[in-house]
């Protein structure tokens, strides 16, 4: 098999041409200008990055970060107990739990988002039920609100959080918990000092996945938020497919990637130091 190393060359070529080069072009394009017709002019400029400092775009950028952080936190809060329960259950329940969590992954997120339109719209299921029970007299406006967007995001990304958490919690040596309880630790204390610190990698992976996916998802805002709310990904999308200001769209994309990287690094460090503090405290 050693003689056929060159077989890798089509793979290298393909990834170079269709993965690396396109990213580099976007990076270069973010420093270009555009003319009045929307064509890209190849001369260096920081226009894209300067436009970003407009209060309109800064506001949307801030909204995106807030929405992504909120989505990540809510996902973490509702997913941890679920992952904890599945990881500690009998093998049969574990198996079924995992299958049930994985299945939504393979159902198109467009469909999963659309499902909430059926629930939330004026003549939707929720309003129908509430009206039939006589709890409200008029249908509530739930679709096209920020709450609907947050709900749609959390709903879409729960599996992204549960699976890494499960993997991390499942790997913890259960004898440590037994030892803790033999030594008189309460269930809560054992959780706080053993399970939580050791599931850190799962919290980390899940949070990064949810955060980055939320920020990059323009469809949920589009379908559940209507025209009222938008995120940086909605602006990127419209700059590329509508307004045809590619340098600005590229600059926003670069800012998006950089923000994600910085936040991932900060998060990583925060988790690290917490863990180290715990270690020091224990010794």
């Amino acid at each position: 098999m050693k003689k056929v190393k060159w077989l890798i060359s089509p793979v290298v070529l393909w990834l170079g041409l269709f993965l690396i080069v396109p990213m580099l072009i976007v990076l270069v394009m973010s420093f270009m200008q555009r003319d009045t017709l929307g064509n890209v002019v190849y001369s260096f400029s920081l226009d894209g990055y300067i436009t970003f400092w407009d209060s309109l775009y800064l506001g949307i950028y801030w909204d995106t970060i807030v929405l992504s952080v909120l989505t990540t936190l809510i996902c973490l809060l509702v997913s941890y107990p679920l992952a904890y329960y599945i990881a500690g259950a009998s093998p049969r329940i574990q198996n079924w739990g995992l299958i049930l969590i994985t299945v939504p992954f393979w159902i198109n997120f467009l469909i999963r988002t659309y499902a909430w339109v059926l629930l939330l719209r004026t003549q939707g299921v929720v309003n129908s039920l509430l009206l039939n029970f006589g709890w409200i007299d008029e249908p509530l406006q739930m679709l096209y609100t920020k709450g609907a967007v947050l709900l749609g995001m959390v709903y879409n990304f729960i599996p992204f959080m549960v699976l890494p958490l499960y993997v991390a919690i499942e790997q913890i040596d259960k004898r440590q918990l037994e030892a803790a309880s033999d030594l008189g630790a309460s269930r809560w204390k054992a959780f706080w000092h053993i399970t939580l610190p050791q599931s850190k990698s799962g919290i980390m992976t899940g949070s990064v996945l949810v955060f980055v996916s939320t920020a990059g998802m323009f469809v949920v805002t589009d379908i559940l938020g209507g025209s009222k709310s938008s995120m940086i990904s909605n602006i990127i999308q419209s700059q590329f497919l509508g307004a045809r200001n590619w340098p600005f769209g590229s600059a926003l994309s670069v800012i998006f990637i950089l923000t994600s990287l910085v936040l991932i690094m900060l998060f990583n460090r925060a988790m690290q130091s917490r863990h180290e503090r715990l270690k020091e405290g224990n010794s």
Partner: protein
Amino acid sequence: MNKRSHPLLGLHSLLMMIFIYVPIVLVIVYSFNNTRLSGDWKGFTLDWYSSLLKDRHVMEALVNSLIVAVTSTVVATLLGTIAALTLRDLGKRWKNPMNGVLYMPVIIPDIIMGLSLLVLFSQLNISLGKATVIIAHITFSMSYVYVVVNARLSGMGRQLEEAAQDLGATGWQTFRYVTFPQISPGIISGALIAFTLSLDDFMVSFFVAGPSSTTLPIYIYGQVKRGVSPEINALCTILILVSITLILLAQYVLNRGKGQKKHKMLPI
């Protein structure tokens, strides 16, 4: 841990499952509901399925989706498998960076992948159509095939291959009669995953599809933006069932081999 776990934990998990599945089940139920507007149940009907079959645009989108999925699956499976096979013979200096690049499509946001390909195609003056969608799908599917085949490869060890070589088998014979039979479940299951991903992709396709290459997810997006029509429930129901079937099949194939360590189908 379970015996000691709090009853509230079980209740919470149950409620979460209900939260996850109620919307999905509703789409399926509504695809049989005999009404265009209200949220109430108005009786069973198959009308939405029959009007779906008669819809020319849906059928065009279906054909486009299938052409794209089949073509990209074949190429992505080939390239992904080659990558997994050749990479294990490369030294660390090449292996690690290549591994990193191969994982990139799994990690980078779809929107970035879609728009960067759009920019590339426009710079090369390639007009958008089925070909550009196929290229994009090959690029991300290849990585998933690589991940699955690689997992299978690293689980199998090299003793059998070495034994074959010791017994005088040529490189090709070793591959044909020893390596390939062992990794074929990984290849088949990688291909099924690639097919599902292609059939389901919206974000990347949205950027690189021309007006004549609308795929099913792009069609659904257009319909949902315009408002709710019951035909969409029928179309979504069909897509849900197809995706789940393909993935369960992939899982089954991957775990069929005896004595192999079980692979969990975690897409991350």
